[in-house]
């Protein structure tokens, strides 16, 4: 007893025992303080070097050199306390974490920048209902708006969704349910077409539908082009969802004597419903912001056009594209107003996608579970009534 206390006392000041477990996600005071110290030290050093000693200018350069200094200082601090393996580990966990921070910062920056700049136009209450029909180059900012572009965008995206979603989901069902060797080239091509240059689908519809078939330049032509862009995105996303439907559910249906089409219709699709809805909404969010396909086949109208099948129609991205290139300041502000509307639309679609699904197939939301519980309680009561 006494001997063991002596031995632990002598061991404490030295290095920890060699077989102490490595704690992978441990947060220690030394770790946090080293990070903070490196960050503050790099900031100070950077200020002295960048702003005072060396003849550099520019905000971006300041932060780039801050980051380099920060990594260097942190490595140096780490090297003073830990062995080489841990230093390398710490270095990479910090460097990779900045990746996550960077992505967040960029997205927030873009969304916030558009919203802030767009607010100057949006605060005029009639901005969303007026069109550009009566707005000349000298019109003040409270004349003219995005009403026509908003209607155009909504009609075009709805038509494009109606065209691309059924075909996309059928194609996804082919990949997931029929599959086999023959499906492999289809999947490869779908993957390849997801990053088809967006201007190509516009050129295609121009060459095919407008110039060869004789469809007029219109909102409908634009939605055809959008559908070409959206089809592979829907297929790809829907296939991923269909793939995680448990095979046991399908086998249960087959064991009960179900044919394949009834299994797909009654088991697979209902199970994957929320995921499929998410896939569709995400594809809509991608399609709604496409400019290039629309640029070539929709024309550009300054006034309201409710009919997507006749005459030129403007959508929000197209509206922004033309307004921002105008030399008039009010037009540029209106472009940001259009950007405001577009970003809000994308964010709303995103929120809907997260709300609808995002969970695994078959995973129930709280409301669905409550409804099921109520239903089974009712059935239990009914059977009790019969037996009594």
């Amino acid at each position, binding site marked *: 007893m006494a001997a063991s206390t002596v031995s632990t006392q002598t061991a404490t000041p030295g290095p920890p025992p060699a077989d102490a477990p490595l704690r992978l996600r441990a947060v220690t005071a030394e770790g946090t303080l080293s990070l903070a110290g490196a960050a503050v030290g790099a900031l100070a050093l950077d200020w002295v070097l960048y702003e005072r000693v060396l003849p550099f200018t520019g905000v971006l350069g300041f932060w780039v050199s801050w980051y380099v200094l920060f990594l260097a200082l942190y490595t140096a601090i780490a090297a003073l306390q830990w062995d080489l393996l841990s230093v390398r580990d710490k270095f990479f966990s910090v460097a*990779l974490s900045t990746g996550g921070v960077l992505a967040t910062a960029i997205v927030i920056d873009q969304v916030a920048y558009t919203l802030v700049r767009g607010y100057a136009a949006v605060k005029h209450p009639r901005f969303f209902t007026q069109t550009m029909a009566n707005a000349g180059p000298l019109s003040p900012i409270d004349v003219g708006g995005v009403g026509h572009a908003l209607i155009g965008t909504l009609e075009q995206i709805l038509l494009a969704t109606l065209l691309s979603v059924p075909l996309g989901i059928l194609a996804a069902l082919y*990949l997931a349910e029929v599959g086999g060797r*023959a499906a492999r080239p289809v999947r490869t091509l779908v*993957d390849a077409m997801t*990053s088809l240059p967006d201007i190509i689908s516009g050129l295609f519809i121009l060459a095919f539908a407008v110039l060869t078939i004789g469809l007029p330049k219109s909102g409908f032509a634009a939605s055809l082009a959008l559908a070409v862009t959206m089809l592979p995105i829907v297929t790809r996303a829907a296939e991923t969802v269909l793939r995680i439907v448990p095979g046991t559910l399908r086998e249960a249906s087959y064991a009960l004597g179900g044919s394949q089409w009834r299994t797909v219709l009654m088991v697979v699709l209902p199970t994957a419903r929320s995921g499929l809805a998410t896939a569709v909404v995400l594809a809509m969010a991608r399609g709604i912001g496409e400019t290039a396909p629309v640029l070539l086949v929709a024309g550009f109208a300054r006034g309201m056009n409710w009919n997507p099948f006749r005459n030129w129609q403007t959508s929000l991205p197209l509206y*922004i594209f033309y307004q921002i290139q105008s030399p008039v300041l009010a037009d540029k502000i209106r472009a940001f107003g259009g950007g405001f509307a577009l*970003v809000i639309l994308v964010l709303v679609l995103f929120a809907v996608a997260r709300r609808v699904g995002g969970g695994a197939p078959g995973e129930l939301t709280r409301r669905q579970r409550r409804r099921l519980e109520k239903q089974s309680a009712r059935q239990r009561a009914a059977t009790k009534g019969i037996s009594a």
Partner: protein
Amino acid sequence: MVASAPEDIPRTIVAQPSTGDKIFRGILRASGWSVFVITGLILLFLILRAAKAFRFMGLRFLTTSAWISQSPQHFGIASILPFGILIALIAMIIAIPAGIAIALYISEYAPRGLKRPLVALIDLMAAIPSIIFGLWGLLFLEPRILGFDSWLGRHLGFIPVFNFRLSTSIAANYASSTFIAGIVVSLMVIPIVTSLSRQVFSQAPQGEREGAYALGATRWGMVRTVVLPFGRAGVIGATMLGLGRALGETIAVTLIIVPAWHFNFHVLESGSNSIASRIAIDFPSYPAAGSMGLSALMAAGLVLFGMTLIVNTLGAIVISRSRSGLATAD
């Protein structure tokens, strides 16, 4: 006697699909192969419409550094194609390390509660319209990056790529450059690289991860020896799909650059070009330029489509290889 027991041969089960199933599968198969039909139609109609321009310019289409679509017509891809590739290269140089870093962070380092929000964030980044990237690049990024540009031009000008032949003290000489367009395009490629490589990283087998830890690896040691080798094919495929996207990006590039016609490697200098942006800029002049002007644009589009289709298909094949390897491992 043992060998002649015929009743031990297993019965082969041949499931005869019902008529309904046959029709159902036929419909699914037709929808699946419609992707091939659409791709084929795109190729066919671009070739049909581009034929006139190719016949008119012949091989000079590859060597001409100008785009005059009104008569006397004179157009070619000798400068717009390499400029576009240069923009895509800059974008990839930034997007590959950043995309892999973000993917590794999400799949290996992020706290569990942060993973789903971050994945949603990357999805959102992919869905931010390219016109918004364009606005942001033109009016937010460009004024802020000019100082960094001039710093690069003055202090790293000895590197040929950063060499600056114009006056380094005039900010406008740095504006609308290949470099700025490349940075903005890189931000649009990052979500593609990230989401595809994250999917592969997160499928690295749990047993091997634990094996690495059991041998005393640190977290980075485990990532370097298990996750990265496992995900290599996926990362290569993701990179190629991202490259396809970068080559074809239209609107953001159109807003940022001013057209330049003499190809050069000096990426900081004002002026650049790309096939997609040329189509977008030149298209409004098409009714005046007549069918030859339009055919010229179709020819440029055909070159772009052929190039991206090859790059993307190779990328998709690499990814599907990595995926089929997974299927056998399961």
